[in-house]
C-alpha cells in the first residue's frame, strides 16, 4: 500500500462512516413518512419539504437568519478593535490571545448557565441595580431574543477575534505611517487601509460565527427560554416532542443548504474553508 493511502485511510473511513453515510440516512428519512411513535415508514414522499413553506416555519427560518446575522455583525464590530489592539500590543500579544481563548477552558453549557445566573430576575445584575435603587422592579434580561443574541455574541466572539488577529498581525505598520503621511487621519487610515486589507480575516471570521449561530440550539433553548425558537430548536423538537423525523430531517438538510449558500456567497474565501 502506498504511504498516501495509509495516511488518507483513517480520515476517509471516519468521514465516510460517521458523516457521509448518516447524511445519506438523513436524506432518506426526509423523503419518508412519519411513524406513529417516531421513526419513519413508507411510502416515499416529499411532503416534509412542502411543509417548510408553512408561514410558521418560514418565520422560524427568517428569525434564525436575522439573529445569526445580527450576532455576526456585533461580533465583527466588537472583535475588530480588539484584534487590532492585540495585533499591535507587542510583547503582551500572547497573554491577550490566551485571555481571548480562556473561556474555552470550561464547557459552553456551564458558561451559558453562568449568564442565566447573572441575568435572571433574581440574578446578580437585577438584584444589584435594585439594591442601588436604579430600578424598582427586575428588568426582563433573560428569556428573550436580546438574551439569545447576547449569548451567541459572547459564545462566538473568539471565533471572530482569532482570524481577524491573524490578518491584522501581518499588516505592515509602515502602511499606517504611509496613510498618515498622505494626510489620512487615524480613522480614515483604518477605514481606507486596515479594513480593506483585513477583508479575508473578516470573511473567515463572519463564516466561523454566522454558521454556528444559524444552527444554534443550546443558546436559544436556555437563554431564550424556549420562546425564541431557531432552526436548531425546531429540528430538535421534531425528533423529540413532535415525533416527526422526516420533517426534522428535511429541516436539517435545509440548514445545511443555507450554510453552503452563505459560503458560496462569500466567494473564494468561503471555498477555501469548505
Amino acid at each position, binding site marked *: 500500500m502506498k504511504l498516501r493511502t495509509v495516511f488518507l485511510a483513517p480520515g476517509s473511513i471516519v468521514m465516510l462512516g460517521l458523516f457521509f453515510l448518516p447524511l445519506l440516512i438523513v436524506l432518506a428519512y426526509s423523503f419518508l413518512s412519519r411513524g406513529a411513535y417516531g421513526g419513519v415508514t413508507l411510502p416515499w414522499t416529499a411532503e416534509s419539504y412542502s411543509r417548510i413553506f408553512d408561514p410558521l416555519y418560514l418565520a422560524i427560518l427568517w428569525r434564525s437568519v436575522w439573529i445569526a446575522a445580527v450576532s455576526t455583525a456585533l461580533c465583527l464590530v466588537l472583535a475588530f478593535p480588539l484584534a487590532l489592539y492585540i495585533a499591535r500590543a507587542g510583547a503582551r500579544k500572547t497573554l491577550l490571545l490566551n485571555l481571548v481563548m480562556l473561556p474555552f477552558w470550561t464547557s459552553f453549557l456551564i458558561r451559558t448557565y453562568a449568564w442565566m445566573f447573572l441575568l435572571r430576575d433574581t440574578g446578580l445584575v437585577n438584584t444589584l441595580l435594585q439594591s442601588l435603587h436604579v430600578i424598582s422592579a427586575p428588568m426582563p434580561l433573560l428569556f428573550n431574543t436580546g438574551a439569545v443574541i447576547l449569548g451567541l455574541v459572547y459564545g462566538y466572539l473568539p471565533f471572530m477575534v482569532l482570524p481577524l488577529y491573524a490578518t491584522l498581525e501581518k499588516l505592515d505598520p509602515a502602511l499606517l505611517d*504611509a496613510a498618515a503621511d*498622505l494626510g*489620512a487621519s487615524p480613522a480614515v487610515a483604518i477605514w481606507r487601509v486596515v479594513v480593506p486589507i483585513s477583508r479575508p480575516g473578516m470573511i473567515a471570521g463572519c463564516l466561523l460565527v454566522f454558521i454556528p449561530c444559524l444552527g444554534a440550539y443550546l443558546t436559544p433553548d436556555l437563554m431564550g427560554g424556549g420562546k425564541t425558537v431557531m432552526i436548531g430548536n425546531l429540528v430538535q423538537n421534531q425528533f423529540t416532542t413532535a415525533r416527526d423525523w422526516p420533517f426534522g430531517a428535511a429541516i436539517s438538510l435545509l440548514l445545511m443548504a443555507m450554510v453552503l449558500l452563505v459560503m458560496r456567497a462569500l466567494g473564494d474565501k468561503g471555498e477555501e474553508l469548505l
Partner: protein
Amino acid sequence: MQTVLELRALSKHFPTHRAVDGVSFAIGRGEFFSLVGPSGCGKTTTLRLIAGFEEPTSGQLLLDGHSVEGLPAYRRDVSTVFQNYALFPHLTVAQNVAFGLARRAQNGKPAIAGKIAKALELVHLSGKEARLPNQISGGERQRVALARSLVLEPKVLLLDEPLSALDAKLRKEMRQELKNLQRTIGIAFLFVTHDQEEALSLSDRVAIMHRGLLEQVGTPQAVYRTPKTRFVAEFLGDVNWLEGAGVRPEAVRISRTAPVSAERATAAVVEGQTFLGNCVHLSAKLENGSACVVEMAQQECDFQPGERIYLWWQKADEFRVPNEAAA
C-alpha cells in the same frame, strides 16, 4: 537660499539610549540634502521626527518658518518615500497615487485625474495605472512611491533609504533619475542613506550622523576633503593616517625616485596590491611602521612587493582632525 526646513537642537531620547541628540541643520528650498551614517546612527529617527511619526523629546522643528510642534503626521506638509515603499497592496498604482490627493478637500475629481496622470508620467509609469503593487517590479514600486508623494507637492520630500531594496544596477540608474527628478520639480529632498557614495554623488549638501549626534554638515566636496572628525573621514572613504594628518588614497602619489617639489614626501616599501576593477589599491609600509594605501590606475601599477619607493602628496590634500581622534 531660503530655508524650508530647520531643525533646532532636535532630540529624541529613549529610556536606553539617545537616538537623536541635539541635532540642528537647515535645508534650503529646492536643495538635495542627505543624512548619512551607519545603521543605528539616528538618521531614520530624525526623518520620522520630521514626518511626525515620532514626537521629539526636545528641540524645535520649523517648516517654512513655522513650528510643527504637536502637528500630527497627517497635517504636516512633508511626504515620505518609505524604505520598502509601503504601497497599499489593495489599491492599484493610480489609486495609490490618488490616496493623498483624495484626502485634500480642494481637489475635484477631474483635477485629481490630471494630477495622477502627470505624476505617473513624471516617473515613467504611464500605462501601468491599473496594476496592483504586486504586479509590478521593485523599481516600478519605487516610482509609484515617489509619484504618490510628489503628487502632493510637499514642502520637503523625505526619502528613507529608498534605493536600498533595489539591486546594484537598478540602484545606479535610479540614483541618476532621482537627481534629475529633483532638479526638474525643485522640491527639497531630505535623503537618508547609509551609503556614503550615494550621499556624495546625489547631494547638494551632506550631513553625517553618528550615535545620535550630527558630526558635520557641508557640500560633498567639503566633507570628503576636509572632514572635521575621524569618524567622518573614515565613514566617507578610505584614509591614510600619516604623521597625524589624514590623506585619501587617491591623493597619494608614488615614485621610484625621491620627489623634488613635493610638499610632503616619505620613503616606503611596497607590500602588495589589491585589484578593484576600475583601479588598484597598492599598500605600502612607511619607515615608521605605519601603513599607507595608494589608489592608482591598473596600467600605472608595475611595482613589486619589497620594492623601495617614495610616497608624496600636496599639503592641500591632507586634513587634520581633533587630537583625541588622530591615530
